[in-house]
């Protein structure tokens, strides 16, 4: 390396990038909330301009609305009121959960000395499926791999009449996981179907 090379990026930056890549940014709920907020504000803006000019209201007269609101549930259908309240409550709950839940994406960090490396669960599942398919000696259609954060599930439908060695498959999958270096390493569970596939 030449002397002009700047130091490689700091550990903190890498950690931050990995965190950002493996967690949702909440862009879609944010845009939905902002659009609804804008519509509401524009409506209030219109009515308040009409009020300040002394004009007739467009849809709702503020004083009338205030009296109706203060008298609830007198002048409203309780079913309609409860339904509206429930819907607003659910929408609020959704936005609140979006704010509070971690929002993990199906992506995993792979340790690397130079860069931040992130792999999608699907890519990892495909590589594990390939490894277990070779180890079990079956075709691609007979293996189903599900990758979760703490466990990897391998489901194999053996070819009819040819037994599959579950321990060998487990060893192969665990070896592949160890090479990948996920932190924490997921537990591997192998399920061999009792129904065989015919004519593979």
């Amino acid at each position, binding site marked *: 390396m030449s002397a002009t090379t700047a130091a490689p990026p700091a550990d903190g930056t890498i950690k931050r990038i990995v965190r950002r890549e493996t*967690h949702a940014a909440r*862009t879609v709920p944010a845009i939905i909330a902002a659009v609804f907020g804008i519509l509401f504000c524009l409506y209030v803006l219109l009515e308040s301009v009409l009020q*300040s000019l*002394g004009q007739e209201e467009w849809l709702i007269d503020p004083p009338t609305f205030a009296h109706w609101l203060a008298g609830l549930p007198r002048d409203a259908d309780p079913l309609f009121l409860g339904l509206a309240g429930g819907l607003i409550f659910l929408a*609020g709950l959704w936005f609140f959960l979006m704010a509070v839940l971690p929002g993990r994406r199906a992506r995993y960090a792979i340790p690397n000395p*130079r860069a931040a490396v992130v792999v999608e669960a*699907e890519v990892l599942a495909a590589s594990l499926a390939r490894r277990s398919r070779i180890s079990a000696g079956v075709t691609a259609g007979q293996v189903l791999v599900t990758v979760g954060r703490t466990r990897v599930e391998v489901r194999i439908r053996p070819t009819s009449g040819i037994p599959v060695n579950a321990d060998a498959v487990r060893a192969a999958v665990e070896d592949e996981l160890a090479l990948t270096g996920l932190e924490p390493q997921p537990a591997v569970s192998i399920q061999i179907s009792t129904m065989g596939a015919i004519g593979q």
Partner: protein
Amino acid sequence: MNRTPRTLNRVLLGLGGLLLLAVGGGLLLLSTNAAAARWWQDTAPSLVADAGRMLEDTAMPGQSQSWLWPLLALAMAVTVVLLVLWISAQGRGRVDTLLAEYDDDGAPGRIAVSGAVPEQALRAALQQDPDVTSVAVSTWSLRSGTGLRVRITPRQGAAPHLVAADATHLVDALDAALGRSSTVLISLEAGPRYRLGREDRVR
């Protein structure tokens, strides 16, 4: 790798969510609970009367309208502008220039390296790897300098750590060639052809 204001997103979503929870919960309580409804009907009208008195007290000189209305209109206009800014802040941060430096050594001019340089170099090199189906490289501005995002779609079934190791070697070579190292994200993603059923499953 973009500069989406994530904390702001979560704080505003949380506040908005709590507001809607309070309104919705209140309406539910009013429609189902007789005691709550009675309390509300005892409390709210006096509040409305207070508000009405305040509107009368703040009437604009020579008119019957309160100056609180234009104030509310102004507040709403400002809020709309802020909300539009919030939307426009999502997903920003992509840049075209990887490096731009001025070296005060007497030679005129400054040196800029376009983001197309790492993009072309890394793409051409990575496509030699038989385990790689497609590559997309983009440049982003980070808190500390610029960063490269290398999106790789591996061939289905390829071992991710091998593809990542290959990409890391190429990034090291790029560092040596440019004389500068930037933050790099290598993201191994499933391309459209990968998609079979659920996101985290594959046959």
